[in-house]
């Protein structure tokens, strides 16, 4: 007996730990994306997001003031300034050769070639002296290692939303996604009720056909459909893509919802029938509220699928500002701004934000037990 109890609790631990690990595994990249997207773009390229909360140590290459700014003090020619310019920073080491950029500690006065001396203080101010005049027009190179405060900013977001055109694409995606989620659900709910609870000839065959449609690859129908749209005059338009998504989503929606609705207790429906409700009232007042968990699940699936879709949008919508959806825009950004991580991370986060919200707002409807209390044992 004891061993069984012990075993099961060890098992529970194993389960809990693996769940925690899995959750971490799945959320850490998202979190990293979020952190990266609000970092300063200079910091972003120099260190990973996991270091972003501590002060950053950076190796900078600066130049001293040009020769034109030299002044003569006593016998020496002098150049002064601050390696940080107007900004603030702390120098932890400096050097003057690229082979050894961290050779000296701040405050030291070190000899360079030809009797020159260099001193860089912790606050970044430097003093460069020489017995002969400086000639370099660009100033000489100074290597400093500095500590910087982490910088968080929403500039990346404002840039992608307003300057890079992601804002407009965001609206376009919304325009596609919301109707393309609601329309199939509405149609499928009606169809599912009919297929589950209404007697009509050919019901079984109809259902079999719907299930059969699940195996048809949608890629196969893209070109014929687009041709049809062009012939009918819909062309590349939002109406076209709504219809396309509706069509592609319906078989699964009908199938899922029918199974759920068919599982509702028969007595509840008969009871409503005896109470005088017609089919439409039964559907609206009894079936729909009870089917909410299934509707919500399907809504999440369909929403995510449409939101993340690139293929269908590429086929059925144009590439112009008015119709370019977010996935399309992201693809373009990847091409044109592939090196700008701050742009890509912010864009990525903009594109996953809405699906996340949809999921969190609907997930409470995914709980089971909505039927409890209706029939025996419930």
């Amino acid at each position, binding site marked *: 007996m004891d061993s069984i109890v012990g075993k099961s609790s060890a098992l529970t631990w194993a389960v809990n730990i693996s769940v925690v690990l899995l959750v971490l595994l799945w959320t850490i990249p998202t979190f990293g994306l979020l952190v990266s997207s609000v970092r300063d773009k200079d910091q972003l390229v120099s260190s990973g997001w996991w270091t972003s909360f501590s002060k950053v140590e950076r190796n900078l290459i600066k130049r001293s003031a040009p020769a034109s700014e030299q002044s003569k003090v006593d016998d020496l020619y002098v150049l002064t300034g601050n390696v940080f310019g107007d900004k603030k920073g702390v120098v932890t080491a400096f050097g003057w050769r690229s082979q050894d950029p961290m050779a000296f500690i701040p405050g030291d006065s070190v000899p360079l070639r030809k009797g020159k001396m260099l001193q860089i203080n912790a606050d970044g101010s430097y003093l460069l002296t020489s017995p002969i005049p400086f000639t370099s027009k660009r100033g000489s190179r100074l290597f400093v290692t500095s500590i910087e405060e982490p910088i968080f900013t929403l500039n990346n977001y404002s840039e992608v939303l307003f300057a890079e055109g992601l804002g407009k694409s965001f609206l376009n995606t919304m325009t596609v996604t919301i109707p393309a989620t609601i329309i199939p659900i509405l149609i499928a709910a009606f169809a599912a009720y009919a297929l589950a609870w209404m007697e009509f000839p050919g019901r079984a065959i109809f259902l079999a056909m719907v299930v059969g449609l699940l195996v048809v690859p949608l890629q196969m129908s893209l070109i014929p459909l687009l041709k049809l749209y062009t012939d009918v005059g819909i062309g590349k338009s939002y109406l076209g893509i709504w219809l396309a998504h509706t069509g592609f989503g319906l078989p699964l929606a009908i199938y899922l919802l029918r199974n759920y609705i068919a599982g509702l207790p028969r*007595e509840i429906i008969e*009871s409503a*029938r*005896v*109470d005088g409700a017609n089919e439409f009232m039964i559907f609206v007042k009894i079936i729909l509220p009870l089917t909410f968990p299934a509707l919500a699940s399907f809504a999440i699936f369909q929403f995510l699928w449409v939101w993340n879709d690139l293929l269908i949008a590429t086929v059925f919508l144009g590439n112009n500002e008015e119709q370019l959806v977010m996935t399309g825009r992201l693809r373009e950004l990847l091409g044109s701004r592939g090196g700008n991580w701050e742009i890509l991370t912010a864009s990525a986060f903009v594109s996953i934000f809405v699906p996340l919200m949809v999921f969190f707002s609907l997930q409470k409807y995914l709980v089971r037990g909505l039927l409890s209390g*209706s029939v*025996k*044992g419930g």
Partner: protein
Amino acid sequence: MANLKLINAGKMYGNVPVLTDINLEIKKGELIVFVGPSGCGKSTLLRMIAGLEKITSGGLEIDGELMNDVPPAKRGIAMVFQSYALYPHLTVRDNMSFALKIAKVAKDEIKTIVEEAAESLQLTPYLDRLPKALSGGQRQRVAIGRAIVRNPKIYLFDEPLSNLDAALRVATRIEIAQLKEKMPESTMIYVTHDQVEAMTLATRIVVLNNRGIEQVGTPLELYEKPLNKFVATFIGSPAMNILPAKVVATGAVTSLTLANGAVAEVPINTADQYLDNDFSIGARPEDMLLTQSDEYLFKGNVSYIEALGEITLLYFNREEGAPVIVKIPGIAHFERDQELKFTVDPKKLQMFDALDISCKYHD
């Protein structure tokens, strides 16, 4: 006047007949109980009356009107399901108002009707709860309340108490009896498996078996005067003992010999042609009387004893057929394998012919 009338009503599922030629008249204000073995079609018959199941042959009249094609809501019936069938997403109040709202009754009126019904069913404190926050008994009362508010001509109950525990079942049974008393005008049809419910509630019991009605009568009629062996064994618990017997003398008093050699003289008239026929006689467990004399009707060794306190049941296994059961009032001290002899008052004996028809009450 008949409130409800079934005329040769029948039901086929595809090619399978489930009920055939049901003829039944139910008068206004009766409480009719359908009993029968599982699967005999009680629920089906009830659902045919409710309009949830199509009547495939014959007809159903309510108040003289043919109802075959009238939708359930227009038949003036209300149904209480075994599984309650409450609307889980609606409060008790909304559950009870549902039908009235659909019938477009005025709001104030709905409120009065619902609150009145809730009051009479002691549901007032629960009106704003969801069904899941109610106990089984309360749920069943809501289901009954939902029927009451519609003020139907006919109430249909399909095993309404079978999900409740024993104590609650008794309490709710009494509530239903009281409800019926308060509404002498309304007719009720009640399906049950429970003998006690059937015997206590019914004005008349309909025994269904084998696709049809075996017998219709008041509870005591069925108990005392079963028309055939099926009703004789179905009504009463434990069931009536059936002993095979051969007719040896006919006339005003029929003599039969039993398998064990005993002779029974039954005061029932039989025609000469039945001589030598294989009949059977029936004796209720409580009519079996202990005897010491050699003029016994049944002799056997006790194979099992059930002492229930108020009664003691003795079981006697037989080579074939169900064991013979004897019911003795009070606590009786017997032992296993003890040999006992019993007689039965001949007037209380039932006699069934080779076709299982009662010779006593069937003409």
